């Protein structure tokens, strides 16, 4: 039966692959752009959105309009494999500066799920692979203004694990630091809401540092000390 089962799975794979029509990477890009655009326009309105679009944030420089759905063959025709471009614009300097304040993973492997970006009025990040542990959460903001930060447990609901305000500053701002206890492996959400001075201009970066040392940055990227749901 082992061989028979293997053959059945091989047939399943072959037949299904032959029927799948991938929506396509361009559709992924347009979805992500739309989500980012929604977040921007929800709080900052057309002016900020226009500024970001003008700066080319999150857009491919060689793509002028929206991608059509369901067109997997639209991938780059420019020869080399397309990669997500590094956006350009004045708002990216503080983003890079904020990212530079994060721990060096080669020396601090307990820094996980770090990221950086432009401050928006309605930023939200769902971290779906957060191991149960106690973390020191550090949020940096480079620029001017303040950012309200809330960390919530799970993929939904309103269980707040930590909250505070990060004060933005040029150079080396003091981070907002929160102790976050993730009770079980799974989702964790980070919300960040800038004020009028920081939105669209300041850059932020955050990271979670395992206080117990149990959780680290795995060789393939995601944290590796996770312990998923119990077996059936």
């Amino acid at each position, binding site marked *: *039966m*082992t061989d*028979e*089962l293997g053959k059945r799975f091989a047939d399943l794979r072959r037949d*299904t*692959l032959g029927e799948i029509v991938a929506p*396509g990477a361009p559709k992924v890009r347009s979805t992500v752009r739309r989500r980012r655009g929604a977040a921007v326009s929800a709080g900052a309105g057309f002016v900020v959105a226009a500024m970001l679009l003008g700066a080319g944030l999150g857009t491919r420089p060689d793509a002028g309009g929206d991608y059509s759905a369901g067109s997997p063959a639209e991938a780059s025709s420019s020869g080399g*494999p397309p990669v997500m471009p590094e956006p350009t614009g004045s708002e990216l300097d503080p983003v890079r500066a904020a990212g530079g304040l994060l721990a060096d993973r080669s020396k601090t492997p307990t820094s996980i799920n770090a990221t950086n970006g432009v401050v928006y009025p309605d930023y939200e990040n769902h971290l779906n*692979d957060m191991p149960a542990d106690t973390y020191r959460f550090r949020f940096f903001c480079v620029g001017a203004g303040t950012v309200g930060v809330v960390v919530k447990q799970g993929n939904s609901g309103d269980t707040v694990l930590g909250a505070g305000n990060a004060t933005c500053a040029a150079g080396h701002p003091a981070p907002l630091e929160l102790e976050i206890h993730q009770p079980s492996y799974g989702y964790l959400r980070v919300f960040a809401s800038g004020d009028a001075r920081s939105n669209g201009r300041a850059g932020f970066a955050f990271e979670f540092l395992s206080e117990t040392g149990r959780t680290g940055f795995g060789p393939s*990227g995601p944290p590796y000390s996770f312990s998923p749901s119990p077996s059936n």
Partner: protein
Amino acid sequence: MPNETSSFDEMYAAHYGDLTVQLYAYFGDRQEAQDVVQEAFCRAYARWRTMSRFDDPVAWVRRVAWNLAVSRWRRKRTVRTFLRRQRPVEPQVDGPDPDRVALIAALATLPDTQRRATVLHYLGDLSVAEIAEREGVPAGTVKSWLHRARQSLAGQLAGPPTSTSPKEIS
């Protein structure tokens, strides 16, 4: 060593199909599987500047897709159970290959852990050790899941009873 030139489009093209097949086998619903995999790639793209430096960004996408799948499955399990009771003949019988329908239906009867291990092993090409690491359980537990899954599938698919011991699973 981080691969600074990782291409999102290349990764998408190379792995969208395989991941969809795996989650189709898990869900029994191809559209659901496609939605989950597409969402996983969206999340990857949203943080691609960081992810492109991962040694193996596909592992991240796979994990996100599976986590999304498990979440969705749990939410919809009750609804699915109800629908199955109301309509014992699944619409998949209209598909071109009855063997595939039978395999998907048989997989759907397995406990989550056995089904996940089976799919990851046979469709994800993961070894027992890799599945064990992913699931956070000893390798022996994975062997046991696979053994029981194969016995169950063998019985349901009308093949001869399995004679494979768990130790024979690589």
